[in-house]
């Protein structure tokens, strides 16, 4: 397969030379908030909210300029400064504003701004609110570095930056042991993925002498198949870590310990999709290796089923949504692995998912706000009348994710399922099954939360959330409704300069596969209604359930697998190292010290205080030296 034609970048002029402000403004705000301390407690959140809004406005201006330019003028590069030069490497810091990255910038700053606004209401009574907003700004800045970088090394800086922000925000309520542990878990598991990404970058530097996207794209066809596959697999490992794909999925469910706006922004809409961005951005590498591409497809397919499975079994509303996020990112990875046909669909689904998943997470946050931070759906029920705005926006998100005709997910997910069938029937059937399971668990969530009877705890008096929280919900709800239709006919052409041209028929009329998808979705909804809508939801999770449910409740035993494969062996090695340290190393050190001490104890007896003994010893020594000298003359 020959690489697709992509457009040569042009140097930044005019408004594009201001693109660095996109990153600088949130970064400076984060620094100001963190450094000023309590002085900024009163107004810090307002400044922090203004930062992503500024970036969003600037991004819209850039986007408008790109829209007006000819397609071959839409890839712009802005060199900022030389980072370092050593040997044959010259690493510069630069931004690449192209159709792919601008869509991410719009998503990050747009959804990010809404979530900042939402957080004003959600975190209103939190004593650490200023710090929370500083971390959010730090995240936005790091994420923008990630998507705007023009080479892999700068991308890696953003990659680590979002990892740091994610860690800080997951364990934001660090006084809770579970949150502190979840933050550490996410951090450690992400390091595994980072190892893959660094190996890929090192390989590129060794092979091409540069990590710049344009250089990599230019030199990639010269790679041997083995190296193309290796770099592809390394990149995939990196993507798996950040995007919580199997086998590095276990951290995402625990990450729900963080505040809900964080779950919406970082662990649903933006950061966890960085893996998909990485794969699409590296398409020049993946196109050279069928093995690496197929590995991406397999990882995506396995994860989309695993995430859906977990989503079906959980009672914690945020964990259901987290499982669903894994599953939807699995769809994106699947599409990205399919090749040229799938890139645009992966990004399309990523954008619509960004809308509807952020919408539902914020909706879940609004519900928790009303229910005294209870996350157990078995304690909900009949909330539709009490929280009307949250309910209707959540319903829009629900219809979008299950792919109800006309809503956002209908367009994006159907394309992926069709493309999957085009690749391989088994993969296609898995994707189809995933759509049915998605409909099942989302319907279960809807029925348990909004309908049925009240199963509220005592002292819970649900009330609709304040305007700062409902306005973002409404805007994201609108995005969930119209996002798919708005992008459907446009996104493929738009992404051409970044991902190469690949015409693919998109129509409004359902194809046979589209009809099959709708049928499977309908089955999922009906099954969920039979199981959870018709009869009373038990107040406590039933214990006598099928093994399938047990496995799902335990996150497919992901922690057990990690423990058995990694944690326990590491512990055993560590314990043996400690043993060796205590016996061998300490034994040698302490033993020699004891030997010196014992010898000294004997030697000090010579120092007995009797002057005449000293004189005798001195005399004997002198005589001995004299004898040696005299006798030495004859030898």
């Amino acid at each position, binding site marked *: 397969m020959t690489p697709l034609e992509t457009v040569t970048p042009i140097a930044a002029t005019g408004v594009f030379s201001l693109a660095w402000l996109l990153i600088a403004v949130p970064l400076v705000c984060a620094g100001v908030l963190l450094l000023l301390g309590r002085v900024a407690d009163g107004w810090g959140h307002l400044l922090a909210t203004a930062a992503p809004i500024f970036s969003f406005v600037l991004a819209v201006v850039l986007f408008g300029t790109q829209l007006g330019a000819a397609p071959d003028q839409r890839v712009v590069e802005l060199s900022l400064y030389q980072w370092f030069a050593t040997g044959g490497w010259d690493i510069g810091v630069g931004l690449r504003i192209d159709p792919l990255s601008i869509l991410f910038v719009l998503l990050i700053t747009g959804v990010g701004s809404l979530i900042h606004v939402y957080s004003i209401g959600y975190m209103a009574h939190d004593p650490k609110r200023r710090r929370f907003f500083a971390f959010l700004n730090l995240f936005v800045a790091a994420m923008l570095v990630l998507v705007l970088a023009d080479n892999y090394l700068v991308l890696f800086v953003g990659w680590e930056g979002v990892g740091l922000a994610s860690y800080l925000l997951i364990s934001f309520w660090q006084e809770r042991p579970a949150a502190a542990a979840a933050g550490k878990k996410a951090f450690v598991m992400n390091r595994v993925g980072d190892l893959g990404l660094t190996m890929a970058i090192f390989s590129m530097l060794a092979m091409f002498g540069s990590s710049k996207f344009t250089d990599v794209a230019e030199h990639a066809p010269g790679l041997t198949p083995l190296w193309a596959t290796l770099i592809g697999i390394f990149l995939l490992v990196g993507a798996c870590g950040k995007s919580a794909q199997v086998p590095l999925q276990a951290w995402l469910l625990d990450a729900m310990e963080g505040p809900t706006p964080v779950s919406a922004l970082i662990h649903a809409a933006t950061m966890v999709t960085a893996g998909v961005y990485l794969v699409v951005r590296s398409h020049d590498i993946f196109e050279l290796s069928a093995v690496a591409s197929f590995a991406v497809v397999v990882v995506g397919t396995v994860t989309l089923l695993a995430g859906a499975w977990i989503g079906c079994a959980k009672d914690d509303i945020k964990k259901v949504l987290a499982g669903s996020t894994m599953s939807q990112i699995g769809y994106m990875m699947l599409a990205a692995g399919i090749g040229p046909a799938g890139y645009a669909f992966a990004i399309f689904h990523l954008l619509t998912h960004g809308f509807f998943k952020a919408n539902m997470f914020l909706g879940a946050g609004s519900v928790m706000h009303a229910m005294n931070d209870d996350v157990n759906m078995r304690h909900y029920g009949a909330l539709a009348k009490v929280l009307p705005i949250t309910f209707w926006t959540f319903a829009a998100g629900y219809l979008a994710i299950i792919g109800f005709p006309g809503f956002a997910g209908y367009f994006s997910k159907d394309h992926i399922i069709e493309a999957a069938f085009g690749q391989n029937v088994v993969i296609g059937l898995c994707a189809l099954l995933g759509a049915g399971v998605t409909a099942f668990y989302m319907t279960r969530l809807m029925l348990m939360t909004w309908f049925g009877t009240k199963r509220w705890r005592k002292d819970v008096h649900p009330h609709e959330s304040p305007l700062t929280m409902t306005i973002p919900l409404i805007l994201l709800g609108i995005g969930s409704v119209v996002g798919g239709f708005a992008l459907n006919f446009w996104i493929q052409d738009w992404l051409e300069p970044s991902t190469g041209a690949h015409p693919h028929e998109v129509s409004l009329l359902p194809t046979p596969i589209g009809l099959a998808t709708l049928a499977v979705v309908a089955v999922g909804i009906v099954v969920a209604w039979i199981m959870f809508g018709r009869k009373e939801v038990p107040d406590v999770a039933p214990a006598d359930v099928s093994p399938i449910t047990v496995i799902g409740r335990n996150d497919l035993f992901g922690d057990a697998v990690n423990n058995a494969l990694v944690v326990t062996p590491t512990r055993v090695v560590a314990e043996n190292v400690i043993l060796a340290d205590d016996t061998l190393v300490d034994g040698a050190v302490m033993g020699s010290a004891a030997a010196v001490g014992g010898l000294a104890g004997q030697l000090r007896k010579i120092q*007995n*205080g009797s002057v*005449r003994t000293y004189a005798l010893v001195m005399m004997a020594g002198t005589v001995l030296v004299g004898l040696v000298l005299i006798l030495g003359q004859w030898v």
Partner: protein
Amino acid sequence: MNPENYIILAALLFAIGTVGVMIRRNALIIFMSIELMLNSCNLALATFAYAWGNLEGQLAAFFVMVVAAAEVVVGLAIIVTIYRTRKSTSVDEANLLKL
């Protein structure tokens, strides 16, 4: 004048001084024995200077005298101090400097 006789005399004096240092307990006697040893050395140095026909040995003898004078000043001061505190000049009793 036979230098050999002077050397034998010096050796005898040195041996007497050495035995004195080792067998006597009184600090003053030990001190005098040390002076005897130093003076035997001076005698040997002067003899060697004579035998070789140059002045270096005599020069060394003068150094020894100066050092001996300085030593007497310090040594006697120490002995007097010890005597004042312990009412004794026995070196076997002055044994505090040990572990």
